[in-house]
């Protein structure tokens, strides 16, 4: 196991501990309201996440056990198993076992879990034979005891009788144990196990039943931190210099210091912003493993191609996007890529391809998952939805709406439940998680050709390079990434055509010309030859935006628009310029949408209307 893998596993264990403590709370509330379906849905999601992540990082045994657990949960969810106290107890014990396992694995990653006892019980439950329950304490105790012998981290009590390790670990588990019945039985054992104190410390460290608020932390390279400290030191010195110079009569000295201070401040800003940003690399590489393992299980050959791994994203956003990405990637491999025979019969190479890429687009981060599989058949989805009773039989949906059915909770397109996916929990979780981040998910699909999932995330903290342009007295920012080129049109470059509106002839290409002033509702301004045309190609259709002048290029800190301005779609945000005044950041794709070239008489009419109102 290399360091990287170890890191992944350690990360998973930390996450798992949190998932399990969430799950425990849910089990308890389920006991209180057995009828509440939303609680079960939540538990189910947690278990599903747990299973997926465990497998992804290579904890096969834990994953396999979680799979059994999940299957049992499904029975409970569907009402095949009665939600009695005994069932809840079993669920809680399973949860405790998983928690203990995670703790043990944190000590020693090679620990082998003795899960047979609980597994048998769960499997019996799945078959519908619940009731022949093993004595809870025995099951738990034994599992933990055998656990203990494999685990180098927990000191075995030397010369203790057979019961001693059981007691010891049972006490350890007490921190999490909520089943009163078990607790009562353990009370007696606890009294005789005073040496158990050091062991109790381990589970207590990750919270216990009272869910501790996880302290958020971030890993920053010491190199970055040192640079920050150095720069701050420089700033302090400059401040001292400045204080001295306040009394000097030489303005050039002062100017020079101010200039230097400006440079240093910019550096401080850059570094401090970069502290929160982490490259998507680690998350992306995790996906390699997922694709490989998923493909192996399914007997498929799939290649994952990564792109834009260096793209940086706010750490908290990245963490929350990790699980949805796992789902999307698994889905691409499982549902997207067809099996080898099918691919061969469709004349495709046997090896499937999944492309995972990250890039910035108009101040947003886009993560794209593209597969060359079979695509999504909207009509088939619609049919299934009707069969399952998700939709009334009379419902008619557009192709796009049908495809979006995959986001419906409890909807799975797979004919049978596989180990990999097909329980229908994935996509609605994916969408919920993404929407929680103010993001958006889009699907493009073509039957037989493949599907593309685009996850679009806002970069709230981002700093971008912006081109500041002027239109009349006002200044606007265009994200530099959107600017393809800028030029001053010569006489004869701009033509008017009744069908197209104004067009700019650029090296033989015909680009629609959009006057920014007109979009903003101003009267036609100066001559075209006096203005600057900015060519935008990032949108589907390239166009030229006509502005009065270019002011310059600056680093822009994006500020979100308040709710009162949210309807102004042509602006993606605002920024404070060098003179301290705010300016709006234009969103070129939106601009292209609202300014469909129309003939001038119509435009003039609108302007006239605006003037009148």
């Amino acid at each position, binding site marked *: 196991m290399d360091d990287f893998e170890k890191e992944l596993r350690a990360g998973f264990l930390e996450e798992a501990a949190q998932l399990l403590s969430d799950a425990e709370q849910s089990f308890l509330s389920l006991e209180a309201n057995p009828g509440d379906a939303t609680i079960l849905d939540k538990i189910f999601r947690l278990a599903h996440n747990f299973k997926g992540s465990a497998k992804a990082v290579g904890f096969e045994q834990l994953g396999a056990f979680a799979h059994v657990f999940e299957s049992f949960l499904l029975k409970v969810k569907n009402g095949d198993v009665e939600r009695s106290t005994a069932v809840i107890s079993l669920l809680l014990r399973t949860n405790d076992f998983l928690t203990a396992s995670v703790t043990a694995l944190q000590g020693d990653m090679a620990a082998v879990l003795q899960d047979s006892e609980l597994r048998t019980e769960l499997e019996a439950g799945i078959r519908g034979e619940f009731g022949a329950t093993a004595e809870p304490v025995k099951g738990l105790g034994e599992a933990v005891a055998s656990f203990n012998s494999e685990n180098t981290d927990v000191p075995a009590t030397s010369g203790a009788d057979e019961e001693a390790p059981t007691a010891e670990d049972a006490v350890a588990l007490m921190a999490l144990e909520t089943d009163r019945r078990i607790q009562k039985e353990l009370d007696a054992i606890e009294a005789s196990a005073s040496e158990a104190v050091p062991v109790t410390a381990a589970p207590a460290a990750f919270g216990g039943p009272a869910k501790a608020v996880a302290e958020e932390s971030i890993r920053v390279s010491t190199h970055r931190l040192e640079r920050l400290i150095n720069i701050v030191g420089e700033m302090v010195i400059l401040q001292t210099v400045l204080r001295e110079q306040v009394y000097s009569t030489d303005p050039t000295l002062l100017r020079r210091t101010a200039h230097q201070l400006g440079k240093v401040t910019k550096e401080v800003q850059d570094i401090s912003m970069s502290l929160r940003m982490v490259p998507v690399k680690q998350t992306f590489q995790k996906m390699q493993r997922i694709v490989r393992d998923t493909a192996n299980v399914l007997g498929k050959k799939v290649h994952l191609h990564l792109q834009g791994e260096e793209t940086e994203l706010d750490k908290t956003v990245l963490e929350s996007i990790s699980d949805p990405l796992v789902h999307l990637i698994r889905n691409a491999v499982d549902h997207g890529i067809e099996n080898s025979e099918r691919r061969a019969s469709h004349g495709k190479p046997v090896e499937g391809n999944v492309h995972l890429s990250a890039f910035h687009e108009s101040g947003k981060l886009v993560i794209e998952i593209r597969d060359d599989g079979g695509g999504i058949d909207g009509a088939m989805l619609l049919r299934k939805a009707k069969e399952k009773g998700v939709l009334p039989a009379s419902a008619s949906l557009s192709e796009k709406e049908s495809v979006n059915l995959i986001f419906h909770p409890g909807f799975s397109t797979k004919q049978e439940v596989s180990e990999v996916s097909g329980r229908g929990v994935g996509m609605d979780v994916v969408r919920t998680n993404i929407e929680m981040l103010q993001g958006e998910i889009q699907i493009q699909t073509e039957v037989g050709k493949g599907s593309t999932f685009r996850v679009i995330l806002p970069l709230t903290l981002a700093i971008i390079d912006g081109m500041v342009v002027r239109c009349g007295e*006002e200044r606007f920012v265009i994200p530099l990434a959107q600017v393809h080129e800028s030029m001053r049109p010569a006489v004869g470059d701009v033509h008017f055509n009744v069908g197209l509106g104004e067009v700019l002839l650029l090296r033989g290409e015909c680009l629609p010309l959009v006057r920014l002033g007109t979009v903003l509702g101003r009267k036609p301004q100066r001559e075209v030859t006096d203005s600057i045309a900015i060519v935008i190609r990032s949108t589907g259709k390239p166009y030229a935006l006509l502005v009065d002048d270019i002011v310059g290029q600056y680093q822009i800190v994006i500020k979100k628009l*308040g709710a009162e*301005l949210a309807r102004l779609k042509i602006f993606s945000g605002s920024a404070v310029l060098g003179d301290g005044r705010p300016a*709006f950041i234009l969103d070129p794709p939106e601009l292209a949408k*609202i300014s469909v070239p129309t003939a001038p008489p119509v435009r003039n009419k609108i302007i006239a209307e605006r003037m009148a109102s």
Partner: protein
Amino acid sequence: MNKGAAGAVSGASERYLRFSLGEEEFAIPLLRVREVIAVPDVTPIPQSPNYFLGVINLRGQVITVVDLRTKLGIKPLNSSEMAVVICDLGSISLGVVVDSINSVVTPRAEDISERPELKNQKASEYITSVYRHEKGMVLLLDITRLFSFEDQNTAGRANQTGKAA
């Protein structure tokens, strides 16, 4: 925090910031006021209703400034005492231009009466109640209602469709 009409009538000890719009006096709950600043340079907002004066940079935060006088149809005085009241409306902060800031008042319950029902007055739906004092009367404004932005959103949509047509 949001006290409706009933709350304002009974809750006697609430404090209000009294200001003038044109010749008239208004007041808003002091708890809604974050700060009062001089009128700064504003950057106009294209494609927005006429009472949207523009955006300002308030110590790194970009805040929209609206002109209540335009919104309520009051003739501005444009006095030298003009100020911007930065209001805290929960999720958003908003600057409101006023002709002058007068004082902070704590009206007694018996001095507050319910607003007269006048259906056709543009501003009446934003007025929660009326505070009478020796020199005249002050209209207590429901600032959250005033800027709920529902009306403005529909106005925006109407504008858009007008454009498309």
